Each structure stands twice: as structure tokens, then as C-alpha cells.
């Protein structure tokens, strides 16, 4: 088959790791949830939202008619957008009866009119057909605009009857099955995202919903009847939207809901868990991981001490495995932030975290290795000396391997640890353990590495070690050769052993007529 269909990625089909991952830095927003109080201090990141939207309006999109040209050659030309996968019969034009403006009717009649307008806005238009219902689309847009302003400034409009209508209107508009991705394997780093065609309406609906949730008259005790688990579940599914503008609004919406509805908090965390687990172990595809991690960053920040078992499990069984995902670079900054948040809460978690990272250490992807090293440095920056002692051996065995990586960026990133004063002080305290682990690699690189910059860095590290513990250093230098020989001898013995075992298998296999499986 020459061209592949952009068929959706089967759930059970794991994709092979591919070496990609330039680090895209973005700053996680840091706001805090206090565990048991309603967070009035929550500030949405309006600035970042603006930045996102303006970035997204620059002409994006890719021309993918040509399946052959390399990704880097494909150039964006025309803007491409896609409407949500709405499965409904289309047909006759939609008619809405224009209603008077809210400000033009006397105050007592406003709540009634407000409800009517909400009901009208439940009508959803087909934006892929750019010519249909133009007038009505414009009418709905202006109505939504009016509603946004109205919830922001008006008082006394939020009657109890309004809650179900608001939630219904929002649900009708935002909840939909997301359309299939246009590219076979959407690569968020290379490919332009598909933009939501109905954004002119959708944006206003989101804007309205956020204002509604933020409104001073908003009462969670009434709203919780309508904003329930099912609502939240559908909201979370939307984080897979390819449109970054939508994900940004969703982030704020979910944040508000997490803040205001205490009863939904555990549920939200659990569903996010499920999304992440599916992402890691089943599909490797979910667009909103970074956004969800951003929210989690602030949730973790608000965890009460001591940490519940549920939270620790989340760290070890969900956050750590997230490191294995191919597209790590897209959310690594947010992930590392969450990890460090956990460690600042409970230093005793350092050991399982570092052991987890070592277990999943990338074997072939150098870019990812650099990210791991970066994260490890962030962890070491906050590590307690007692914790450091617990993991120093496996940790420095890995660092020793990184230092001798033929990829100079990996080696360089690892060697930079020696520029970090706090890490240096930890190494110095434990030089008797660390130096023997590091010595052989450093010694070898100082003679063999192809990159002069690395050799120079290694030279400095060796010099530092010499100053720290000169007796041990001299000893190691003196025994370097004999140690290598001993290693070689051991290696030979291993080979011998396996050879003997192999012979044995052969004899047995022959005797028992091939019962032995191979």
C-alpha cells in the first residue's frame, strides 16, 4: 500500500517508540488549591489564554495531499479547519425568531428572556457549510455575546430555573464526538492542529460558561445538581481536542469546577488517572495531557499532609509511567513540575520517584535522555541529604552511563551537574561512594571521547574529584588497569559458564528428543 489511510489509532495498538522530542518549554501556571476551602485565589491565566489564541490565529495547516514529501518540506498554505463530528441529519435551514435585547426590557422580565435566549442558543449550526444559515449564525453569535456581557454585569438574573438551562445550552454546544484527526499520525510538534470550524460560537459559549462559573451569584450547591459526574466526564473527553484554543478554555473551566465543587474533586482526579493510563498503556494519543498536568500541578500543590495513599499511588503508577510516552516533550515541563511538587510535599517519595525514572530511562532516544537529566536535576535541587544517600548508587551508575554517552548533548547535560553547587556539595559528602562509580567512565572518556568540549568538562570533573578525595582518587588511578583486567576475566568466566550450559542443553535436548523448548 502506497499511502496510508488516516485511520484512527486503534486503542489496543501501541505505537513503536520513535525518536522525537525537542523540548518545548512552556511555563506551567502555578496556582494553588487549598484542600478544604473554596479557592478564591484562583486566577485564570488570562494572559496565557490570550497568547494561545493569538498564536493559533496565525495561518496554520498543512497540505497533505502529497504523501511522499518529508514533513519538514510540507509547508502550510491555506488555513484548514474541521467541524466536530456531528452525526445528525442535515437538511432544512434553521429559523430562530429574533428576541429583543435584554437591556431593552424591564428588569422583572429579564430572567424570563434570559432563559429564552439560552434555549435559542441550544441550536447548533453546521460550520463546514460556510454558506448556510448565515443570518442565523450571526444572530446566535450576537446573542451569545449579549449573554456573555449579561452574566458579567447583571445582578439577580441567576434564578434557580436558570441553572439547568445554562448547563443544557453549554452541553448542547460543546459536547460532541471529536472528529478524526486529519493526519495518520498527528504529530503535534510538526503538524499544525486542525482548528475547530465552529469556534466563532464555541468560543463565546466557553466564555459565557466561565463567566457564569465565576459570577458572584453562582451557587455551587444548586449547580451541583446539573454539573455532575457525567458532565465532568464529557468535559474531560474534550481535552483531546486538537484546537489549542479550546483546550485552553477547557483548562480554565475544569479548574473552576474543581475549585467550586468539592464533591467532584475525587471523581475528577480519578478520571484524569484513567485518561492518563489509557494514554500511556493503550493509545499514546491524547492532545490535552499538558493542560491536564497543568491543572494537576496546582491540585497537588493543595494536597494536605500527610499525603493519602491514593495520591502516592497516582505519583508512582501514573505520573512516573507518563515518562515513557513517545511524545514526552510536549508535556515534560508540566510533568516535571508535578513531580517536584510531590517531592516538596513529601521528601520520602524521592526514592520511588528516582527508581522509577531509572527503570524507564530511555535506551535509544537521546533527546528524551536529556529531558530526563533535566528533570533529575530539578529533583536533586530539592532532595534531602538523607534521601540522596538512599539512591546515590543506582543514580550515579546511570549518570556514569550518561556521561559516557557518545551523544555529546547527553554527556554534556550530565556533566553540567557538576556546575550545580548543591549537587556538588552532596557529591562531596558522599565522594567515597560516588567516586568509585564514576571513576572508570570519566577516566575512559578523558582519553577516548570524540568531542573536545566533553573531554574538557570531564577533565574539570576529574579535577574536582581529585580535590575532594585525593587518597581515593590516587588509589583508583593506580588500580584502574587491574580493575579492567578483573572485569575482563569475569566476562570470560561468564562466557565459559554459558558455553558449558549450552553444551549441557544440547546433550539433554538430544537425549530427550527435543522436549526441551528453546
Amino acid at each position, binding site marked *: 500500500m*502506497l499511502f496510508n489511510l488516516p485511520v*484512527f489509532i486503534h*486503542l489496543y495498538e*501501541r505505537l513503536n517508540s520513535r525518536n522525537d522530542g525537542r523540548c518545548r518549554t512552556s511555563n506551567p501556571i502555578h496556582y494553588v488549591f487549598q484542600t478544604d476551602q473554596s479557592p478564591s485565589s484562583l486566577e485564570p491565566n488570562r494572559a496565557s489564554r490570550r497568547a494561545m489564541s493569538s498564536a493559533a490565529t496565525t495561518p496554520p495547516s498543512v497540505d497533505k495531499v502529497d504523501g511522499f514529501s518529508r514533513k519538514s518540506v510540507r509547508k502550510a498554505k491555506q488555513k484548514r479547519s474541521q467541524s466536530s463530528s456531528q452525526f445528525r441529519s442535515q437538511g432544512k435551514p434553521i429559523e430562530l425568531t429574533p428576541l429583543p435585547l435584554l437591556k431593552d426590557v424591564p428588569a422583572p422580565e429579564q430572567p424570563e428572556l434570559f432563559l429564552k435566549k439560552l434555549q435559542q442558543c441550544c441550536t447548533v449550526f453546521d460550520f463546514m457549510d460556510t454558506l448556510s444559515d448565515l443570518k442565523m449564525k450571526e444572530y446566535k453569535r450576537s446573542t451569545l455575546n449579549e449573554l456573555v456581557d449579561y452574566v458579567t454585569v447583571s445582578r439577580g438574573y441567576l434564578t434557580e430555573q436558570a441553572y439547568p438551562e445554562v448547563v443544557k445550552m453549554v452541553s448542547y454546544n460543546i459536547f460532541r*464526538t471529536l472528529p478524526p484527526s486529519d493526519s495518520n499520525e498527528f504529530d503535534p510538534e510538526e503538524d499544525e492542529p486542525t482548528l475547530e470550524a465552529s469556534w466563532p460560537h464555541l468560543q463565546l459559549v466557553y466564555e459565557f460558561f466561565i463567566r457564569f462559573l465565576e459570577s458572584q451569584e453562582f451557587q455551587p450547591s444548586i449547580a451541583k445538581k446539573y454539573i455532575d459526574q*457525567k458532565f465532568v466526564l464529557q468535559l474531560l473527553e474534550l481535552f483531546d481536542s486538537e484546537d489549542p484554543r479550546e483546550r485552553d478554555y477547557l483548562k480554565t473551566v475544569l479548574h473552576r469546577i474543581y475549585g467550586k465543587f468539592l464533591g467532584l474533586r475525587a471523581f475528577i482526579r480519578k478520571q484524569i488517572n484513567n485518561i492518563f*493510563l489509557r494514554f500511556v498503556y493503550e493509545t499514546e494519543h491524547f492532545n490535552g495531557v499538558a493542560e491536564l498536568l497543568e491543572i494537576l500541578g496546582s491540585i497537588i500543590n493543595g494536597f494536605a499532609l500527610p499525603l493519602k495513599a491514593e495520591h502516592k499511588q497516582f505519583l508512582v503508577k501514573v505520573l512516573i509511567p507518563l515518562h515513557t510516552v513517545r511524545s514526552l516533550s510536549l508535556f515534560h515541563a508540566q510533568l516535571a513540575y508535578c513531580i517536584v511538587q510531590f517531592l516538596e510535599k513529601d521528601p520520602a517519595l524521592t526514592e520511588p520517584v528516582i527508581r522509577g525514572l531509572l527503570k524507564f530511562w530511555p535506551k535509544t532516544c537521546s533527546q528524551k535522555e536529556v529531558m530526563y537529566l533535566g528533570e533529575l536535576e530539578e529533583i536533586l535541587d530539592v532532595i534531602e541529604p538523607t534521601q540522596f544517600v538512599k539512591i546515590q548508587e543506582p543514580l550515579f551508575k546511570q549518570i556514569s552511563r550518561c556521561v559516557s554517552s557518545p551523544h555529546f548533548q547527553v554527556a554534556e547535560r550530565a556533566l553540567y551537574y557538576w556546575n550545580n553547587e548543591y549537587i556538588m556539595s552532596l557529591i562531596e559528602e558522599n565522594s567515597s561512594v560516588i567516586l568509585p562509580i564514576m571513576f572508570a567512565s570519566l577516566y575512559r572518556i578523558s582519553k577516548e571521547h570524540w568531542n573536545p568540549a566533553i573531554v574538557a568538562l570531564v577533565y574539570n570533573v576529574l579535577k574536582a574529584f581529585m580535590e575532594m578525595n585525593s587518597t581515593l582518587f590516587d588509589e583508583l588511578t593506580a588500580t584502574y588497569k587491574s580493575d579492567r583486567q578483573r572485569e575482563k576475566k569475569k566476562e570470560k568466566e561468564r562466557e565459559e559458564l*554459558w558455553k558449558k550450559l549450552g553444551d549441557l*542443553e544440547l546433550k539433554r535436548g538430544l537425549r530427550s528428543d527435543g522436549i526441551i*523448548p528453546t
Partner: protein
Amino acid sequence: MNQSSFISGADGDDSLYPIAVLIDELRNEDVQLRLNSIKKLSTIALALGVERTRTELLPFLTDTIYDEDEVLLALAEQLGNFTMLVGGPEYVHCLLPPLESLATVEETVVRDKAVESLRKISQEHSPVDLEVHFEPLVKRLASGDWFTSRTSACGLFSVCYPRVSSTVKAEIRQHFRTLCSDDTPMVRRAAASKLGEFAKVLELDYVKSDIISLFTALASDEQDSVRLLAVEACVSIASLLPQEDLETLVMPTLRQAAEDKSWRVRYMVADKFSELQKAVGPEITKNDLVPAFQNLLKDCEAEVRSAAAKKIKEFCENLPEDSRETIIMTHILSCVKELVSDTSQHVKSALASVIMGLSTILGKDNTVEHLLPLFLAQLKDECPEVRLNIISNLDCVNEVIGIRQLSQSLLPAIVELAEDAKWRVRLAIIEYMPLLAGQLGVEFFDEKLNTLCMAWLIDHVYAIREAATCNLMKLVEKFGAEWAQNTIVPKVLGMANDPNYLHRMTTLFCINSLSEACGQDITTKHMLPVVLKMSNDQVANVRFNVAKSLQKIGPVLDSNALQTEVKPVLEKLATDTDMDVKYFAQEAIRVLALA
């Protein structure tokens, strides 16, 4: 080390290989070494003997399982083949503890492998052991805390169900029911994916009472990833039930799935359409599936349309014979017509890959009247893949109406593809040339296509030149040596004087592949002189290719030509200043035994 000490080692007293040494290997710091050791675990077990494998090695493996997933994967696989190494079926249950832990790890690949091994060794358990050892393990997994063990349990129910007592059976059914409504979607997905398999081992009454309700519930799950798996199960379930029950038990759910609000579910229905069609039988197909299929062909998502388009031929073939033609003509054809001008190239190309198959079903007259215009439209499609798919399936039409009907439109399409800017498109059409040549006949070929074939020889992409030489060989095999001598050979040999050395090399490559097909006479008389002359080429690459060519065509030549003409030239090349030329000349002398 003699034989007897091996045996004593296996018997357990003063052993030759202390387990510590072997375990050291399994614990080696280097992952690669650890992995190698695990892959040779059977060897280690052999060295230890069956008893110590049971009492020492397996407990060690069970207790210390915390390793990289790659090592665990190898371990899970090994243990599935361990029955003989622990002493045969009566001891096979010793393998359960390590496999149980492996069935709870996070990594899906490891877990799946552990389940696979468990399924394998379940067959080696006696019915008693199955109830005493295996079934309790399944229960433990099914009620595990973390979702991973519950997921693994889903795959184990069906292997023990048929061989246990009816009380245990009832328990197993209960566990499966619980997992189908688990609150983590991962477990529901696992259960849904095993639903069909489980249904197959259940007694029909329980299929009707238990499975159907589970099926209905999973098919209306809140997550589309669960619903779509129920579609797969639908195929198995429908084929288990008697025809008269299908309408009430399965069809409501299937209808709902075909109109699901999530395109993924509809895609799944389209993708499994042929299987569904077979499972529900001709009557339901006529009444229900035909309209459903029409809807899928008109779906709003291209993904769904192309999955459905791919099934058009199979669907039509499997329609009940008495009404097949009517259904196609009245219901399907109009959808097909629309798909020809679909907005998505993937849909069009999916259609193009099957549309030709309809001609055999509809017969000559209908093909000429209804399908031909569609073929022609697709031959002119803007997307090269669509055109290629049509061309690659020409043989179906050829059988029904003969290719002449198409040839007028075919030619421009072929020429355009032959000159496409993308080399992969050119490559694809070259690969169809021998097929086309066979169907269009030698005259048409000489008249219209020969020039194209020759033009590819001087394409600027090597892969095309290479494919073009290969194509020439196949053509000669088809049309014979005489045809080659008259039409191809002169042109190929003419390129030997081309100023571009790449083209001169192409001559050599062509000779390499043509000599055998052309036979000794043509090779000696026409090709050999040209090759020999090229040994004086000023470009070293041409010279060493001369040496390679001589080596290649040597077997076709007679010994006289070899000795008098080839040998001197190779000997001269063997003293060339260029080391590659020297090497290949010497190689040729050696292979042709001319030294």
C-alpha cells in the same frame, strides 16, 4: 566435566552449578546481560534439574520480579514453555505464582504475554489442578485492587470455563459480569474485547441470559472505546444464536451501533461489516444491513466512508444470490456513484481498490452501462493513488468486458502516472507494466507504451531506473526473445555511448537482467561486444560494473567466448589502477573459474 556430574547436578546433591552463580547472571547489572540470561532461562532450569527449578529458581523469580519491562516480557514468554522443565503437567501449577505477578504489571505488553502463557499452561492442568490452583488465581486477579490484574483476568475466564464443575462455572460467570461493569474503563474494555470469546464457551442458555445483557450494557457504555469493542463481540454472539433469536437479542444493539454518535463506533461497524453480514444471515442482511450499509457509505466522516467503501465488493458478493443484482442496482450503485466524486481522496482510493470487483458480480451489460463510466471517472481522478488502484485491478474487468473498452482512457492515465512528479508514483505504475502489457497485447504495447518503458531507463531517480530494467526483463519473458531483439535490445545498447555515465551503467544493468531471458545467441552476438567495449570506459564505476556484468552473464555464454573474449578483458581489468575495479574483476575471474 563428564556426563555423570551433569546428572548429579540435576539430581540436586553437590551440584555443578550452584544456583547462586545462575542467579547472579539473572541479576547482572547490565540489562542486556540480564535479558540474555532470562532468554536462556530454560538452560538454567535444565542445569538445575526439575526439583531445584521448582524449589529454588521459581521462588526466586516470583519474589524478585522488579525489573525493566523488556526483561519481564522475556520472562513471561519463557515461563509459558516451562512445563517439562518443572517436571511435566503434574507440577505445572508451580508456574502460576510468577506468572500471576507478571499478569499484574502495568506494561500492557508484559501483561498480555503473561496472560498468553497462562492460557497456554492452563491446557496442561488436569481438571482437578485447574480447580485447585488455576481457578483461584483467576479469582484473585479478578478481584485485584489495581486495574491491571482485573484486566488480565478477563483473558483467562474462557480457558478454564469449559473444564470446571458447574458451581465453579457459576462463579466464573459472576466474576465476568462484575468486570463488565467495572468502574475503570480499562477493565471494561478488556472485558468487552473478550466477550465474544467467552460467549463461545458458554452454554447457549447462558449466552441468552447472561451474555446478551452484558453485550447490551457494554454496547451502550458511556465511553466510545468500550462501545466499539462490543461491535466485535457482536459478530461472535450473533453467530452463536439461532436465527429466530437474532432479531430480538442482537439487532436492536447492532442498529444502534450503526448509528452511534461516535464515528469510531460507526467505523468499527463498517470495518466488521462483512463478518456481521455473515453472522446475521441473508434475511436480516436484506432488511437491515442494506440500509445500514447505505448510511455508512454516506457517513459524515471520511474515515467511516472509506472503511465502508472497502467492503463494497465483499458485501455485494455475499448478498443472497436471488436478490443480489436488484439490491446492488437499486440501493448500492447510487452510493457508489456518489463516492466516485467524494471530497476525500482516501475514500476515493478505497473505492478504487474494490470497484472493479463489482464487474464480475454484475456481468457484462451492467458493467458497460453503469460501471464503465465510474471506472473512467476514477481513471481521471486528480489523486494518483485512485488511478493506480484502478489500474492495478484491471484484470477483473478484463475478464468481463475485455480491456479494449477502457484502453482509450487508460492510455492518458498511464502516461500521466508515468510522468508523475513523485517517483513513488512512477515506481508503482512501472510495477503494473508487465500486467498491463499482458492484457493489452504486444501491438498496443509497442505502439503506445514502449517509449515510456525506455524513457524510465534514463529517469533521474535510481530506483526508477532499477525498476525499469527489471520491468524490461519481465516484458521479455512475456513477449519472447525475438521481440526483445527487435524492439528493446538496440535501444538499450545504444545507451552505451551516452555521454552520461549513469546511462551507460544502465545499459550494463539491463544486460545483467536481460541476458538470461534473451538467451545465449543474442547475448553473445549483441550484448557481449558492447560490454567488452565498455571495459575501456574512463569512469571507474562503469569499469567495475563491466566486471560485475561479465560475472553475471558468464553462465549464459559458451566456454569459447568465455576463454577468448571475456578472460582477457577481465585480466586487464584485474590490473586496473582503481582498487574497486581490480576487486570486482578478480571476483569475476574467481566465480567464472577463469584463473
